[in-house]
């Protein structure tokens, strides 16, 4: 164990080494590390922000969906009401129409029956006259016997 010039040499070596590390190694590596740390921190903050925004958006969407659903149900209700009204109106109109048509038809039937009765009466009158003329064997003057014939026709 002796101390000699090696001691000085090692001190100088050490000084060079420390200088080199301080100048060329530490600043670069620590700079890179710090920058990456900052990037990661920024990234995490951004992710956090995005998550919060997403949460906000979700809440907004939920409110909007609720509103939309409410509106839709309102619209459906209204549409149903309107439909019912329309149906009611249509039914009323149809009933009215039916009644009207029925009345008309009854009228028609009545007038047609009346006419048919008239014709029948006339034909029966004519037939009666024909029959009578055949029976009498002579021409009955329809004008002369009109009153008689009419009376006959009404009696039939």
């Amino acid at each position, binding site marked *: 164990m002796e101390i*000699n010039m090696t*001691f000085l*040499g*090692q001190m100088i070596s050490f000084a060079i080494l420390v200088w080199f590390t301080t100048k060329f*190694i530490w600043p670069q590596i*620590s700079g*890179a*590390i710090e920058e990456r740390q*900052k*990037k990661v921190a920024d990234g995490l903050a951004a992710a956090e922000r995005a998550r919060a925004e997403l949460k906000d958006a979700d809440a907004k969407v939920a409110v909007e969906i609720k509103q939309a659903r409410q509106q839709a149900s309102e619209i459906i209700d209204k549409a149903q009401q309107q439909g019912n009204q329309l149906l009611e109106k249509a039914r009323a109109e149809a009933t009215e129409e039916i009644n009207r048509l029925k009345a008309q038809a009854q009228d028609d039937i009545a007038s047609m029956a009346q006419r048919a009765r008239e014709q029948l009466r006339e034909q029966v009158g004519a037939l009666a006259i024909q029959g009578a003329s055949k029976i009498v064997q002579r021409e009955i003057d329809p004008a002369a016997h009109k009153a008689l014939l009419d009376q006959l026709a009404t009696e039939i």
Partner: protein
Amino acid sequence: MVSEPQGGLTEYIQHHLNHMVINFRPDAGAFWNVRVDSIVVSFVLGALFCLWFWLYARKATSGVPSKGQAFVEIIVEFVDTQVKDTFHGDRRTVTPLALSIFMWVFFMNAMDLLPVDLGGWLVHTFAGAETAHHTFFRMVPTADINTTIGLSVAVLFIVIGHGIKAKGGFGFGKELITAPFHAEGPVAKTILVLPNFFLNVVETLSKPVSLAMRLFGNMYGGELVFMLIAGLMVSWISFVPGVVFNTAWAIFHILIIALQAFIFMMLTIVYIATAREHH
């Protein structure tokens, strides 16, 4: 074993404890010796560390790091965390210092894991037995007291520099003679100047001595044990236990290598942190 001289284990170990020495002034005594092996190995290892870290520092990216960069960053951040926990202040010079100490001491300690006879065998094989008999080479620079003292004295200068920078030249000088014993009144203060100064000198000088001795003792002892174990492998009877002991000691030594590098670094940081504190 190849480079073993004729005189058995004692001489084998003594042979292995010799340094490769160049003396610039042979007439002026042993102080002018330069241990070439310590200087060269430590310088090569320091350069290796610089090159390795510089290659990754040069193209360090803040994006996705390569595996190599990530590994370098793990080491750097490990050291930085230790510094941050102990030292509260501007770390721009302290962390590089701690990193240099840690990596360099670790590399130098790790030389202990190379086979003790590897150097001798290489010389023997490539330069012949005669050269091998005269060539000494020790692979572990930290098992040389000059290396550890050199490191710790440099650390001492840095620590004193931090103290002066934090307190100013006057404050630093004043603390030398007024702490740790505080007194009221000029008489008592004057009496305490000498004891205070003496204690502070002892305290300051004990730092590099303890730093250097701890590292040196651990590595020197470790190296010695490796040599003793290597002595076991001389005979075929003790060869197998030799291998077992060697492996066990090497595995245990990995812990010591890392631990001693870590302790040296930690104590340096602690010394700097204490030097910056006001009493």
